[in-house]
């Protein structure tokens, strides 16, 4: 396998991880107009809960389930008790979610300590597979599969179910959805919780990929997710997938060739999209 193909596959795997955190953020922002700066903190909470349960039970899958449920619960409680009073107050939302991010990350440090923790791969996904005569980690291929599966499930939910119709309509005009007799606030709550659960699931999946976790990882991934949703278009899951792929591939290539500017190139890509197409590649004009 050529170096280019190897980097490309690694980029796709990283893109799949970023997609897991970005898709929820995109729908939450698109549907509810909430810019959730605590999304990355939920991601890292998922990783730590997954790590703890994996360590205690020896089952990675139980860890993944526990991390996802933790994200669901944090997301549900956050929306119910903190976000809801701030729906029409954007400055308030930013301050509130920034504050929640700090509280959640500091709470993690209190519980698990601030140091880096090793996160092993599950045994069944350890090792390499031969792709075009060269070895490639099984876990990274697994991540690509997971990303694809989540994209397909999200696509099915959004395009083939009534809940999906409500979400897509709610992204465009939540007031009209209400006027049709649909309790859009309830849908908001579930989208928020589901988005948080996906981010937390992404957190668990990221652990074995990087081999370790630490509290600051949440913020770093959140930044990537923001870049992704601006590039792909807010509220659009296909846009989030494309944006995540672009960012993942770009970051991997730049990380290999010019590591010092890897993040800067993604920010530059976001700036370029903002200039040429402010609503993002798949976003609709508002």
């Amino acid at each position: 396998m050529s170096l280019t193909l190897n980097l490309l596959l690694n980029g796709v795997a990283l893109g799949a991880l970023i997609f897991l955190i970005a898709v929820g953020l995109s729908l939450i922002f698109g549907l509810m107009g909430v810019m959730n700066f605590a999304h990355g903190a939920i991601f890292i909470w998922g990783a730590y809960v997954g790590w703890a349960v994996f360590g205690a039970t020896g089952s990675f899958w139980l860890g993944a389930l526990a991390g996802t449920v933790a994200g669901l619960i944090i997301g549900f409680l956050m929306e119910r008790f903190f976000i809801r009073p701030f729906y029409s107050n954007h400055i308030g939302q930013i301050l509130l979610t920034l504050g929640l991010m700090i509280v959640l990350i500091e709470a993690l440090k209190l519980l698990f300590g601030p140091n880096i923790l090793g996160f092993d791969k599950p045994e069944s996904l350890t090792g390499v597979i031969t792709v075009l005569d060269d070895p490639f980690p099984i876990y990274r291929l697994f991540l690509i599969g997971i990303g694809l599966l989540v994209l397909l499930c999200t696509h099915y939910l959004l395009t083939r179910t009534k809940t999906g119709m409500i979400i897509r309509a709610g992204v465009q005009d939540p007031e009209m959805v209400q006027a049709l007799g649909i309790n859009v606030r309830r849908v908001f709550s579930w989208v928020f919780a589901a988005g948080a659960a996906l981010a937390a699931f992404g957190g668990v999946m990221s652990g074995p990929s990087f081999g370790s976790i630490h509290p600051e990882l949440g913020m770093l991934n959140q930044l990537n997710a923001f870049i992704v949703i601006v590039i792909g278009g807010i509220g659009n899951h296909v846009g989030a997938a494309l944006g995540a792929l672009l960012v993942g591939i770009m970051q991997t290539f730049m990380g290999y060739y010019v590591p010092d500017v890897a993040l800067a190139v993604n920010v530059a890509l976001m700036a370029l999209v903002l200039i040429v197409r402010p609503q993002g590649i798949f976003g609709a004009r508002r």
Partner: protein
Amino acid sequence: MTMLLKVENIQTYIGQFHILQGVSLEVQPGRVTVILGRNGAGKTTTLRSIMGLTPAQQGKILFGEEEIQGLAPHVIAQKGIGYVPEDQGIFRDLTVEENIRLSMRRNDEGTQERLAFVLELFPDLKIAWKRKGGNLSGGQKQMLSIARAFVNDNRLLLIDEPSKGLAPIVVEKVMESILELKKRTTIVLVEQNFLMASGVGDDVFILDDGHTVYRGGMSDVKTDDDLKRKYLGIAI
């Protein structure tokens, strides 16, 4: 006679602006009640207040026997009020089919019958069934918006300026459809186009500067040139 809708002296603010300063209406079942008035008189805000989208801070709104002011818009809609907003409120990324299916609260025989009826009334929608809402013409959007409100078992339809921005031939079609719908439900119509309103309306309320300033029959308004000149700006 029992009124289907009774709005009693409602006061509504948008931000710091006191938009409705005492609007009252009575809507009799089976009739088309038209709300007339100049731009900025408070017609759209009145419909939005009834739907709970811009809630009234004071006054009372009775739907049948039940007070509905203060309820959430989705609860008000579920009680049997359909809403066709001024901008039609079509979901541009959803197809015509999805726009209609989204609004269907049930999928029973009655709903299917009403769906068949509106598709008969607006055959354009059948042709554009799989087309996205954003790709429809202004007239098709208006038809879809009306169809979406009618497909449920709504006892009352609130229709806001259906003729706005439409070509005269389309306005005629929309007017004909309102006359058809009138046979099956009660309608409150906000309209600037007096010619259209006078063709379909039974009862009239005129608003001016956030107040109800006239109530009467459409036949009286048609012949009252002073009234039309004073409140509707129609030169005779």
